């Protein structure tokens, strides 16, 4: 356990150093590519809180992500920048409210029904946005100016600069990672993990488990919202595809591929899927076939995900 924990720490530190150093040597295209990967990694970590730790397999996690992206579009004036904090608060707030409403309904179900109902809510939002003129319909809408942070005339960073954007995304990804570690070690976190293990017993110990699941669902939605805000800010564009079930499905794949319920698994999964996508696209137009094959093989041979590679020894 100690060796395992230490090797993970060393690995994470090495990864962090590499990420901090990358913009000094990498081309613009790759800096932007890794920014995208980090945003997806945050998004995947938020889903893993539900799937890997609480045992709630959601197929509608694109909902808070996409709504948060649209919220940024909504609060951005046409030719001006939205405020950094106000737009983050708007995006995460919308994601929280949507997750609360959806959570109150879907958390009454479990298992396969939970998957179906989360999917249904996701699709409802998708079609609503898709068919709404004021939201840009199927084409979506542009965000011409990225949010800006200004403290008494001082600008600590400029999101129009791709390197600055990269570091902001990196900082937020580290923030999400650390928040989840703290959360999972807290009394709340212990309850969440126990829900996956044996919810009935937990209730008999006196825990009102529904409440804990709901709070967890909202927290995961808010983190997905943060990722959605970043994604919209980076692309300068929102469209209904951000809300589609493909998005939710791909995300679930990242979590499973990386390793459910492991600290760094979702990050690995997001990176692996995005990098392979890029590589295979360079080889052939049938890249989906290669990607699918890779996923099948990795699930067959690494059922606990890529994180498995780094666990030389199992606990005990």
């Amino acid at each position, binding site marked *: 356990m100690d060796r395992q924990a230490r090797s993970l720490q060393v690995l994470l530190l090495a990864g962090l150093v590499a990420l901090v150093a990358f913009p000094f040597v990498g081309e613009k295209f790759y800096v932007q590519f890794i920014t995208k990967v980090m945003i997806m990694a945050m998004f995947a970590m938020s889903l893993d809180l539900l799937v890997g730790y609480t045992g709630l397999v959601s197929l509608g996690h694109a909902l808070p992500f996409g709504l948060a992206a649209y919220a940024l579009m909504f609060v951005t004036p046409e030719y001006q920048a939205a405020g950094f904090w106000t737009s983050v608060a708007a995006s995460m707030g919308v994601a929280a409210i949507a997750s609360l409403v959806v959570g109150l309904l879907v958390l009454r179900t479990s298992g396969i029904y939970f998957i179906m109902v989360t999917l249904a809510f996701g699709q409802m939002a998708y079609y609503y946005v898709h068919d709404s003129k004021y939201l840009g319909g199927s084409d979506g809408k542009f965000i011409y100016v990225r949010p800006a942070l200004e403290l008494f005339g001082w600008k600590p960073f400029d999101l129009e600069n791709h390197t600055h954007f990269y570091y902001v995304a990196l900082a937020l990804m580290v923030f999400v990672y650390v928040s989840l570690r703290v959360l999972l*070690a*807290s009394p*709340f976190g*212990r*309850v969440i993990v*126990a829900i996956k293990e044996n919810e009935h017993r937990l*209730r*008999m110990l006196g825990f009102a488990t529904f409440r*804990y699941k709901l709070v967890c669902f909202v927290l995961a939605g808010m983190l997905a919202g943060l990722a959605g805000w970043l994604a919209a800010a980076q692309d300068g564009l929102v469209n209904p595809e951000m809300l589609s079930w493909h998005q939710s499905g791909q995300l679930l794949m990242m979590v499973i591929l990386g390793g459910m319920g492991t600290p760094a698994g979702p990050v690995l999964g997001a990176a692996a899927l995005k990098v392979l996508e890029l590589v295979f696209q360079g080889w052939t137009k049938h890249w989906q076939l290669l990607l699918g094959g890779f996923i099948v093989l990795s699930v067959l041979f690494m059922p606990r995900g890529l994180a498995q590679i780094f666990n030389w020894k199992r606990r005990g």
Partner: protein
Amino acid sequence: MRTAGLRRLFGGLAAVNGVSLECHVGRLHAVIGPNGAGKTTLINLLSGELAPSAGRIEILGREVTGLAAHRISQLGVGRSYQLTNVFMRFTAFENCRLAAQSRLASSMRFLRPATRYREVNEAAARALALAELSGRENTVAAELSHGERRQLEVAMTLATRPKVLLLDEPLAGMGAEESARMVELLRKLAPGHAMLLVEHDMDAVFALADTLTVMVDGAVLASGTPAAVRANDAVQRAYLGETDD
């Protein structure tokens, strides 16, 4: 704890049919009866896992009939299971800490690590010590022996600091030595708790019980001191007769 006319139907079958019994702090009330007599259903009714079809349940002077299971637990009712029901991937200590954590005003605490709540740790350690599992704190539940897991089951229940204990066959599947240890533990617990014990092991029941109730087909056949029940003709015929001869 007191029940009156407790009844639970499954379809047309009355699994528990008009059961009235009482249980007081410092007394151990044992319930025996053949398989299918409705003993586990009775416990499920008392713990709130099942809602009664009729009748009422009173705990510590409060009517709790139909209350949600977690609310009943918070009032001070702890139960253990016939089939071991613990968090298999947690260590023995983590199991008890989680149980003890349920007595915090709320577990909606997000920042301080769960390991740093001193009063919770102490309650967990106390429960483990009481159940004589002190040397095994850091063993994952899945790797404990069957008997140890039964002890852990009781320890978790104790870590919630209950006043009423509902124990569903704590001796099930235990060897002679493990059984003796569990009987000792139950004897130690008796003075501080109102205990309802469902058990098949007659030696243990007669050694521990202050009051004995015999259930057959969901109904109470006889109830009283162990000596009186043993002497009861109906009980002799229906139940004990088979083993005594």
